[in-house]
Every structure is written in structure tokens, then in C-alpha cells.
């Protein structure tokens, strides 16, 4: 009996020495994260982990992702007793609600946005929780800080902060418009019905799209045509003096 007691104390001691209680807090249940909530994940391990139960933060504070969709998993995946691997779960996020969530209209093109799915924890899954949280992740502005932003993404296309999700270009490198750039993507690209289109036709169409994009005249601006093939071309807007900016030229109906 004494030996048993001794062994018990030894085991308890070993437990204490081998592993302290984890410092991780319980956090907030996955199912309680609403659409529009923002999530701070200042460590890459948090961002790329399959689940996240940290309490949401204000969207005007530094954060990494924003929830655009909360749904329930269904089908064969949902019937599995153990949480499936992230590779198989990620495909469940629907991309179609993204543009409405961003407030994008026909002339707005989002660029560089990624979907980051978060799933219930193993314990939540075992308890029957099948909530799937789909977050948006914006491009990285400062490499030391990662994909961090301080503005809400909901309806962002109607605000100047939309530079965070618009496509621009610095010389030949595509960047997000919030970074210094000298050209801005004009949505939509042009498509011609016939193969015998001339450069002037392409230029004319691009200028028309650019005017619609800026919502006014093209004073002080130049349009660059970038043919993709004989029937298709991309249009880029730039300042006449090739000024480098971090703002957007988008105006129009915004």
C-alpha cells in the first residue's frame, strides 16, 4: 500500500515536472463568431491553424482576418466522427458571397484576397458542432507585420480604404493599391468580337472603360493598353507624370 502511495506521489510529481498546464485560454466557441467579426492572429501559427476560438476584436484595431460567411458543414464531411483534415475541409467555403460582402459593383474587382477557413475544435466537433467560419485575408502590406489591416472589409469597395483589395502595378510588378504604385487596373478588361481589331479600337474601348471607372474625365491621366491576344486586352490607368501613389483612382458611382 505504501509503495502504491509513493508511486502515486511520484507520478503526480512527474506530471508536474513534465508538463505544466497549457497557458491557452478557452476562448469563445466557434459557433459564436458572427459575420463581420474581425480576428487578430498576430502569430502565423494562429492564422494557419485549423481552428480559432480567440475572442473577436474591433475591426478598427489591428487584425488579420474578417468573417464573411458562417455556415454549417453538410454532407459526408459532416457525418465523420473525427474532424476531417483541413485539406478536405477548406473546399467547403463558398466564394460567391465575397463580392456582395465587399460591396463590389460591376466596375470593382477585388484582388489579392484569400479565403481562410476555420473549423470547430476537435472537442466542438465531437460535441456535434459543424459550424464553418469563412474569413477573408488581405494581402500583406508590411512584411514584418503580415496581412494586417485596421479597417472593416464589409462594404470596403465603396470607401477609399478599398486600396487594400484593389489591383495596381509598380512598373511591371502587380501590387495591392495600398502599396506605392504607378498604374491601376481598370475593370473590366476589354473583349472584342472580331480578330481584326486594331490598336486604336482597343485604346478607344479602354478609354471608355477608364472613364466609367474613374467616374469622370481622364484629365491628367493616361490609359495603357496591354493586349493579351488579338481579341482581348487589359487596361491600366496612370498619371501623366507617372506619379507613384497609394490611393485609388476609382470614383464613379462609388
Amino acid at each position, binding site marked *: 500500500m505504501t*509503495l502504491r502511495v509513493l*508511486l502515486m506521489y*511520484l*507520478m503526480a510529481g*512527474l*506530471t508536474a*515536472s*513534465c*508538463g*505544466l*498546464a*497549457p*497557458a*491557452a*485560454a*478557452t*476562448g469563445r466557441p466557434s459557433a459564436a463568431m458572427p459575420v463581420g467579426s474581425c480576428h487578430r492572429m*498576430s*502569430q*502565423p*501559427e*494562429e492564422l494557419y*491553424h*485549423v*481552428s*480559432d*476560438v*480567440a*475572442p473577436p476584436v474591433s475591426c478598427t484595431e489591428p487584425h488579420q482576418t474578417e468573417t464573411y460567411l458562417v455556415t454549417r458543414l453538410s454532407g*459526408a464531411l459532416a457525418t*465523420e466522427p*473525427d474532424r*476531417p*483534415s*483541413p*485539406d*478536405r475541409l477548406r473546399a467547403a467555403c463558398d466564394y460567391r458571397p465575397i463580392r456582395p460582402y465587399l460591396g463590389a459593383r460591376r466596375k470593382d474587382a477585388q484582388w489579392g484576397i484569400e479565403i481562410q477557413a476555420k473549423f470547430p*475544435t*476537435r472537442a466542438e466537433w465531437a460535441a456535434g458542432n459543424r459550424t464553418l467560419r469563412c474569413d477573408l485575408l488581405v494581402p*500583406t502590406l508590411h*512584411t*514584418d*507585420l*503580415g496581412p494586417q489591416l485596421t479597417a472593416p472589409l464589409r462594404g470596403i469597395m465603396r470607401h477609399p480604404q478599398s486600396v487594400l483589395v484593389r489591383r495596381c502595378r509598380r512598373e511591371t510588378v502587380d501590387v495591392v493599391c495600398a502599396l506605392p504604385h504607378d498604374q491601376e487596373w481598370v475593370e473590366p478588361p476589354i473583349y472584342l468580337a472580331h480578330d481584326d481589331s486594331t490598336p486604336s479600337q482597343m485604346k478607344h474601348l479602354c478609354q471608355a472603360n477608364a472613364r466609367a471607372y474613374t467616374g469622370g474625365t481622364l484629365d491628367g491621366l493616361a490609359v495603357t493598353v496591354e493586349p493579351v491576344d488579338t481579341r482581348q486586352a487589359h487596361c491600366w490607368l496612370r498619371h501623366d507624370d507617372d506619379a507613384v501613389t497609394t490611393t485609388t483612382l476609382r470614383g464613379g458611382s462609388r
Partner: protein
Amino acid sequence: MTSRTRISPPDTTADDHELGEHDHSREWSPEQDQDFGRSRCVDDHELGTARSGLIRLRSHRARRGRRSALITAILTGLAWAGVMLARLFAGGPVGVGDQGDGRRLLCTFGAANGRPWNADTSDYVFTAWVPHAWFGETCELYRSTQLGLLWLAKQVNGPLGLPGLVDLRGLGVLSTLLVGVIVGLLAWLLPGRWWVRAGAASAIGLVYADAAFAGFFVSPHTEPAALLGVGFLLAALLLLGRGATLPRLLLTTIVAIFTIGAQVQTAALAVPVCVALIWLPYRRLVRWRWAGPVLRRIPGIVLSLVVIAAASFHLAAQPETQMEAARHGVVFGSILYGNTGAAKDLQDLGFDAPSAAAISEIAATNAGVGSLPPVLVAMFKENVTTAGIVAFYLTHPAHAVRAVGWGLEGIGRFSVDYLGSYPPDAGLPPGAREHRIAAYSWFWGTFRVAPAFLLLLWVATFAAGRSVVRRRRVKPARKAVGRLAMLVPLMIVAQFGAVLILLGRADITRHLTVVSFLTAVCIPLLTLALCIRFRGVRPNPRRRDAPGMPNSCKPELVR
């Protein structure tokens, strides 16, 4: 009494297996004197004079020897603590990059690495860990005695003026001091003259200082606890090898449990530790011949059970997800790696033919277990167990040979050369490795060319140790070296097997760090064992005696 009435010079023990554990060279009993008088027929006056002179001389020499040993130990330990401090910090700190282990360990303290977001932690060493709140699964329970060292590092972080919650440079300072203690203990416990002790302990200190191991002391890995634990275990086994007393048995048990708790694979050290604990009968029960070999080892047996229980607890307490991932890694990374007969082998692991074919097809695309359909994942979980993997290797010698080959190659690489050594502000290219002290790394070129020599080194060390242990007329302190030389290859083989079975081929060089360390220790240990084997036996003074003359009582001869 008759068993102790033979007079023997200090190096000649009557019975290596039993009385050998009594250090006759340091004890003198009236019975021995009486017997000596009877057997030599020396008159009482001469006997009394010789005896009192002998006792005085022995006492004086013992005091001087102890003081000399202590001074040697302290100086050697201080010197190596200094060497370690200098090699880790002089000219800027060096360490080992992180592969993700750091978060698992340090999140326990509510800390996160203070590196820039886009930094590659395997290329550079980022020593500062800052306070951070972790939630849910991002910080799961991680069991390792390394947490104890990190807790100490956290305590000294402020007093050392280091930034953040835990700075790994504090861990480095602590580790260098502990290396100094280990080297000092070895210098104290090893036999021979001061320069032999200091030299042999320094050879082991040089292993710690080698570029293959030193960097781990400034890293967020579990290797510091394992390497320091093994060092203390070597010292404890040296002490235990002189004779089994309760303090020595307890000390060995505590050090072993700390070392076993460092990593998953270090649990295998329970085997050699148990051998060591029950090798020698308990000293106070040595003369209880009637009790039989088992009863006389009761304290060692009880403590062996404690060690086994601790190792079992350690393995059972590991997060199941990590152990499962490790098993999957062994199957996909080792058994199915480059395996043309994968389907057949999977059937031998317990899968039915269609499942085995499906898994082998997936494995052929280098995909992991995450790519398996749920049915196969469930089947995988059901069929693949550690016991099943052991049985597979036992019944498939070709796979076992292949795995051993990978293991030997892993030891041959010696250092984790794919992880950087420098902080980013050192201005060196990503992944740059330091080679401030690389004596063993340089010598390891031999094993890189021919890893089979590693086996020879292990066998030679074991054989030399066995030869020392079997030899009579060897002092207990020297015989302890022989026992250690036998135990270290056993520790190596146990660890080696555990890594191959529990963790597999992936990242094998890092997983075999303790094996590489012990293999490097084999070199000085083998040298020392051979020296003792061939030069350690002093001439028997009785052979130089003139029959019937009291010259044999001359202290210098008896001594």
C-alpha cells in the same frame, strides 16, 4: 567473517561480482588485520607499527586524493562552463533555428516568438519570446522536462537584463553552467590521476561544445533537457557503478526520470537505466548470500519499476494526436518510402487487399495520411499501432535493415545542418551554420563516408567495457568506467530503435541527436576503458614479496 579475511591489495578484489562492490582499497577492518597476522606470521610489534603507519598514510593520501579530485573537478567544470559561454556568446550568440517546436513548448508560458511575421525561423535564430495570449488548440499540452529548464530561463530573464518573457540566451547561460557541473562531476568521478580525469571529462565537455550540439542550448527544442539529462545520467551511472547504495540508486532514478521525460524517444533510456539499477546488489545486502540474487537487488528492482512506470506514463501522457501523426509518419515516411511492394507490406500491417492497394497508390504520389479518404483514415487508426510497427520490423528484416541504414546515415550527418545558427542581425546568409568548435564534427567525416563504422565503435566500446568489468583486481571506480562503457552502447541502441519505431525517417538526424551525442561520448569512453583494461592493473605486490618477510606490509606496496 571468512569471506572478508583474505588480505588483498586495493586493486585486487576477492569477488568481482559480489565483494567487488566493496572498495577494499579504502577500508580497513580489524578482521583483515587479524587475518593478515595469521596468514603472514608477522610478530605483533611489527604488525602494530606497520598497521598504524599504513592507516596514517592511507588517511593522509585519501584526504589529499579527495582534495585533489575536488580541485580538479571544480577547475575543469569552471573551465568548461567558460568555454561553453565563450563559444555560444563571444562574437554574437549562436543557436539552432526553430522547426515549430518552440511554440509548442513556450506557449505553455504564454509566450510567442518575437520574430517578424515573414521570418523563416529555420533559417535564423530568434531568441526573444514575448508575452502572448494563446487560445484553444493553438497551444496544446506538451510534456517535456525541457519545460523545467525553460521555467528557470524565465526566472533569470529579468535579472540577466534580457528582453521579452523568455530569452533563449538565458537558457544558454543556464545550460553552460550545467555543462560545467556535468564536466566537473565527471572529472570528480572518473578514475586516474588529475590530468587523466580532467582530460577524459574535457573530452566529453568537447562533445557538448561541438557545433553539432552546443547550439541546441540556445534553441526552443527539447534537446537541451535530453543532452544535459544524459550528461548527468553518465555521472550518476559512474557513481552507481562503484556500488549500489540507496542515495546512488535514488540519484540515478531521479536523473533518469528527468532525462526520460525530455523527449518521446528518450523513454527508451528506461531499459539501460533498469539494467544499471539492478546490475549490482544493494551494498548492505551484499553478504546476504542466503537471500539470493533477486532479494539482494530489491531496492534496485523497486526503483526500476518506478523508472518503467515513469517512462510508460511519459509515453501515455503525450497528446494522442502527436503520437498518431508520428505513427503515420513512420508508415508513410519509412515503410512505404520508395517501396515497390507497398501494398503487400500494408497487408502485413493489417490492411485488407483493396485498402492496401488504395493506400499504396496514394503513398506513391508522396501524399500524406491527410489525403486518405475517411474510411482509410479510420482503418489506418485501427491497424497502425506502435506494437504493430515493432512486429512488422521484426518479421520484415529487409525493412529493418533499410531503417537501420537511414538511422546510421542520420547519425553520420551528425548535425542538423538544415537549421540556421545565427540571429538575423549577424548579417549572414539564411541558414548559415556556425563551426566555432567542431572537433567531433570534423572527425565525423569518417562516419559520413562509412556509417558502418558507427556499429564498430558501439561494439568496441561495449567489448572494452565488458573486458574491464570482467577483469579482476580492478578498483571499483575503474570498474565503473567499464560498466558505463557497457551501458552507453545499450543506451544508444535503445534510443536508436525507439527513434526508428516511434518517429521514423523524417528529420532523423535531429531525432537522433542524443544517439549522436552518446556515440561521440563513446570515443573518450572507449579510450579510457582500453587504458584501464591494458594499463590499469598494477603489479600484485605479493609477487614481489620474499616469502615470510614483512615487506608486504610496506605501505607503498600495499597501496
